[in-house]
């Protein structure tokens, strides 16, 4: 085997090992949810059980924490999408030094440790006598999640043809109509992706939530505290459910994506066929039209 093929093989082996490295611990963790052992483990195997799922279902505090998490996540999506979209449009409309400066300030929260964001949010709103709680966690999370939304929307905005805005204006649309019917629809993919990312980033956030939640429970912090105090495989049960959800989500996305790709390909092929037909002389066109019965 020559050097080139050998290196290709090596890198494929490496990729394989990496994927195993990424997924194996999750599998282990998930399988441990089914093991009838008080301490989460897969070895020694003490038999299949679903009691941890039952315990999970009965854990009221966990359910309450989960609903809080969802509540915050939805609020974060509702706030960060408009902010991020507006920020992307703003940045796209300015140039030069101001643009770079603005961009720097907007990206800063992503590069800031969650603890810092959490504590500073707590202190700032404390000035206005706003106590710690779910709403404070929402605001703290929005500070960096808006930046993610902004980046996604901005990238999509770069592919927008400004002539479309002008054409719409020219045809009589008001500014609001142009935004609503031309620009926002173009941004839907980015807004959709942004909403998804915002939701999940919010749900899994720990550091900011820890400092801002006050006495309320959220899923991540509750799990964190449970893990440190008294571990039972209920956590694994939760993990297994989340993993299963994620995998199902990933597979669905993949299937939809492949289907869209195929549809796109068919459309282009049809168009190419139409164009060839259009350049044929009249007689050929009518002949094939009658032949295909159209």
């Amino acid at each position, binding site marked *: 085997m020559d050097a080139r093929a050998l290196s290709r093989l090596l890198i494929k082996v490496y990729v394989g090992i990496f994927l195993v490295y990424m997924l194996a611990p999750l599998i282990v*963790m998930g399988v441990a949810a089914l093991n009838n052992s008080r301490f989460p483990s897969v070895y020694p195997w003490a038999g299949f059980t679903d009691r941890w799922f039952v315990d999970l279902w009965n854990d009221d505090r966990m359910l309450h924490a989960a609903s809080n998490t969802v509540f915050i996540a939805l609020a974060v999506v509702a706030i960060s999408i408009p902010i991020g979209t507006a920020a992307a449009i703003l940045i796209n409309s300015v140039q030069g030094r101001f643009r770079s400066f603005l961009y720097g300030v907007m990206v800063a929260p992503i590069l*800031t440790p969650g603890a810092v964001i959490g504590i*500073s949010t707590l202190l700032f709103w404390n000035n206005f006598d706003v106590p710690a709680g779910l709403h404070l966690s929402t605001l703290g999370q929005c500070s960096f999640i808006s930046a993610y939304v902004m980046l996604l929307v901005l990238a999509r905005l770069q592919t927008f043809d400004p002539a479309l805005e002008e054409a719409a204006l020219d045809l009589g649309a008001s*500014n609001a109509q142009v935004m609503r019917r031309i620009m926002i629809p173009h941004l839907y993919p980015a807004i959709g992706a942004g909403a998804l990312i915002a939701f*999940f980033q919010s749900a899994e956030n720990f*550091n900011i939530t820890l400092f801002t939640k006050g006495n309320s429970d959220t899923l991540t912090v509750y799990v964190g505290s449970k893990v*440190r105090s008294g571990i039972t495989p209920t956590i694994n049960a939760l993990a297994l459910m989340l993993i299963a959800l994620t995998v199902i989500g990933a597979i669905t996305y993949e299937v939809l994506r492949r289907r869209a790709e195929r549809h796109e390909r068919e459309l282009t092929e049809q168009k190419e066929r139409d164009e060839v037909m259009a350049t044929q002389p009249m007689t050929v066109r009518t002949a094939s039209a009658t032949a295909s019965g159209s």
Partner: protein
Amino acid sequence: MRDILRRYGSTLTCFIVTLPAFWLLALVVLPYMILFEYSLKPMLPVDQLGGPNDVYGIGNYLTFFTSPIHIRIFFLTVFFSSVVTVICLVLSYPLAFFLAKVAKPHNVPTLFMILLIPLWVSEILRSFAWFVVLSFHGPLNALLGGIGVIADPVRWISGFNGVMIGLVYTYVLFMLFPIYNAIQALDSHQIEAAEDLGAPAWRIHWRVVIPHSKPGIASGCVMVFMLSAGSIIVPSLLASPGSRWFTEIVQQWMFEAQDWNTGSAYAFLLLVLCTVFVTLMMRLFKVRLADIAK
């Protein structure tokens, strides 16, 4: 400003400007400033606020600088976060290169999906997974003992090992994606041209691929370092006696001592650390802040 008004009309311009303004002022800039302000004031009981003792001073910072334990922990945090960053870089680079240049294009989205599953599952579950795997009676020891590599079970979570392993696993994907983006933008023909001219593989990487992917590498290093140094759950979950992390001290000040002033000083130190690191990376790799984006 006038261009924005012209392009969008007054109502929309209002939104486009005020939403980001609220975000950047109320959720980013002002909170950091308040954080700094708090850090310069001593902790006082409520009745003494605004009184003669409520003055600015660096007392809280002195608390840090006069505590050998805290200083030691700070430097260990920096050191091990840097080690984690380097390990992540070494692990991610080949995979990023593979995904960007070697793998067949229609396989890439699928591979991405698989890699994204651990990311969606959330930070806390990623660290918990390793907790299960590395536990004394856990599967790793069982596996290694079973195939005869070790005689007695190894206490994996000792010193900083557990923390490092956990951090690498939890944050390696944040190194992978920026580097992938950067390498992807490189024109494959450049690599082929270098091969054509007879350059060996390592040379091609050193002279062609790596220089081009510097923004991605810088971006990845910044993210991983920031996440590691600021990580709370991983070091606490995979802790062993003697592996205290700096964020743990911040927590102690904020929650156990309820001393928000000293806590904010320590948090500010963490912020300074990350800012210094970002600036260092920018100088080292000669990239601008605008390049550090997803």
